[in-house]
């Protein structure tokens, strides 16, 4: 019996894993120190940064006192940096300190992917906030562009890494979510441009062009990942029942993910109902209903064993639900109403004849782009749940 239990002792963290977690914990400890017992925490000491300015006896030095007051009044450097925008004094702290700590703690592929998307969303929301405040100056545009590029490159690197590690599923999910995120923000920026006076169109042009380029990249990545998955799917050792079984498993997994996402967004909408305008809420709710309809359509396809079609519909439902949440979040944060594509089309139709005659070639070109993007989103990849999870490394 002793040997039976001995088997378990072989299960350990790999050296690299242990070292990485230790390093992450050290970073966490640095940012969250223990308060010395001798020094009572006064109400006005809001930040642990005070411990840096204490003498051995636990008293504050004069310069430290002055600095400490400044920090206290600003509510603590790290906490205050969280809401800063490009051009603000604390924005470098947000990028170089806060976000580095988050990155250190994001262990595991999914956690890294989620954080990378979240940071991309942050960068774009900052841009939109600046635009709403009519604060998107030329000198800031270069900074915004640089940060956006860094984050976009990180995401592309992550996707490539996941593909190389054989995690096609995670790569596919990340590229699909990135695509959805970029499209929502592209739409928002286009609407801001139309709605708000005082925005220098040249400044927005550059950012919008970058976003469109990244959308194109994300779509190319989708195709690449799909091709890879399909190539693996058609390997010599796969039989037709194997492929069908995996496609069904993938479609059902995607259904579960879509249903979870819809439930999450529904809870979110209900929680935010009193905090947003009725118009915004109804729009988000309508988008969520669209997602639910897509699930129903997908379920019908499942029953007729059209697993590929079902998968695509569930994928679209997932992305649509996510877009509903994003729209509401961003509208609330920016305190503006951003009409949905369909509503915008309805308003276009009721434009005066003169406005129709005034439509420029550029307006026509933008609409063509939208149609193309819509079509491409229908050709989303198939996510096959690869058989088996990652094998454990043991000594």
């Amino acid at each position, binding site marked *: 019996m002793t040997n039976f239990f001995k088997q*378990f002792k072989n299960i350990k963290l790999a050296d690299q894993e242990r070292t990485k977690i230790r390093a992450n*914990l050290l970073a966490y400890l640095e940012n969250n120190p*223990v308060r010395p017992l001798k020094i009572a925490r006064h109400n006005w000491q809001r930040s642990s940064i005070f411990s840096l300015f204490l003498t051995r006896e636990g008293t504050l030095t004069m310069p430290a006192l002055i600095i400490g007051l400044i920090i206290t009044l600003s509510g603590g450097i790290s906490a205050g940096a969280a809401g800063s925008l490009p051009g603000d004094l604390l924005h470098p702290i947000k990028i170089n300190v806060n976000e580095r700590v988050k990155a250190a703690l994001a262990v595991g592929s999914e956690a890294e992917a989620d954080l990378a998307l979240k940071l991309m969303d942050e960068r774009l929301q900052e841009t939109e906030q600046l635009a709403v405040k009519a604060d998107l100056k030329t000198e800031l545009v270069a900074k915004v562009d640089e940060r956006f590029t860094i984050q976009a490159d990180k995401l592309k690197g992550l996707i490539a890494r996941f593909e190389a590690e054989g995690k096609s599923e995670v790569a596919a999910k990340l590229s699909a979510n990135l695509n959805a995120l970029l499209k929502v923000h592209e739409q928002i920026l286009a609407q801001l441009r139309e709605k708000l006076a005082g925005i220098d169109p040249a400044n927005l042009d550059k950012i919008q062009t970058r976003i469109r380029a990244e959308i194109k990249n994300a779509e190319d990545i989708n195709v690449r990942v799909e091709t890879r998955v399909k190539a693996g799917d058609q390997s010599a050792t796969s039989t037709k029942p194997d492929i069908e079984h995996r496609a069904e498993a993938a479609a059902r997994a995607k259904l579960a993910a879509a249903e979870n996402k819809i439930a999450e967004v529904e809870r979110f909408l209900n929680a935010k109902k009193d905090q947003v305008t009725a118009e915004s809420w109804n729009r988000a709710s309508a988008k969520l209903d669209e997602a639910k309809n897509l699930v129903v359509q997908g379920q019908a396809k499942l029953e007729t064993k059209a697993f590929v079609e079902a998968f695509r519909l569930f994928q679209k439902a997932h992305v649509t639900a996510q877009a509903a949440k994003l729209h509401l979040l961003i509208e609330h944060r920016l305190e503006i109403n951003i009409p949905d594509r369909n509503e915008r089309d309805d308003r276009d139709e009721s434009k005066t004849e003169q406005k129709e005659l005034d439509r420029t070639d550029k307006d026509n070109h933008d609409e063509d782009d939208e149609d193309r993007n819509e079509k491409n989103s229908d050709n989303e990849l198939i996510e096959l749940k690869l058989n088996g999870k990652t094998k454990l490394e043991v000594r």
Partner: protein
Amino acid sequence: MDQDQMQKEKFLESYDSYADAIFRYCLIRVYDREKARDLTQDVFIRAWDYIVSGKEVEHWKAFLYRIATNLIIDNARRKHELISLETLMETGFDPGKDDRSHVDDYIDGQKAVAAINDLGEIYREPVYLRYVEDMSPAEIAEITGVSENVVSVRIHRGLYQLKRKLKQ
């Protein structure tokens, strides 16, 4: 040495001593190496937050296992995962190397994990903690929240069931 430094050293010592055990404990319950790794890190982060809040830890081992148990339960509730033998086998879970050199007492890692997980929830934990992690009934009682006597009974019954399963 100031208090912060002392606490840090003690904390890191605990990490060095117990990280593998906590990881193993998490892995046996969630069957996913990445998740187990994330949970292991979370356990130690929670432990540090506890210290930062001004509290003292008397028995590190039991304390860490308690946090791990709670996190595993939270994780299972969030993901609605049912941990079953079928899931284990289907996902090709393979926690250990086969050591064919010990043929007479040979049980491969996969079967070992499968066997112990086939026990009911109330027996699995005390048996695992007693015989794999070498914990005393008193320590196990502290983790599971039941009396020492109950722990001893469960260990005895769990071991009996395990032996019967292994003979089959």
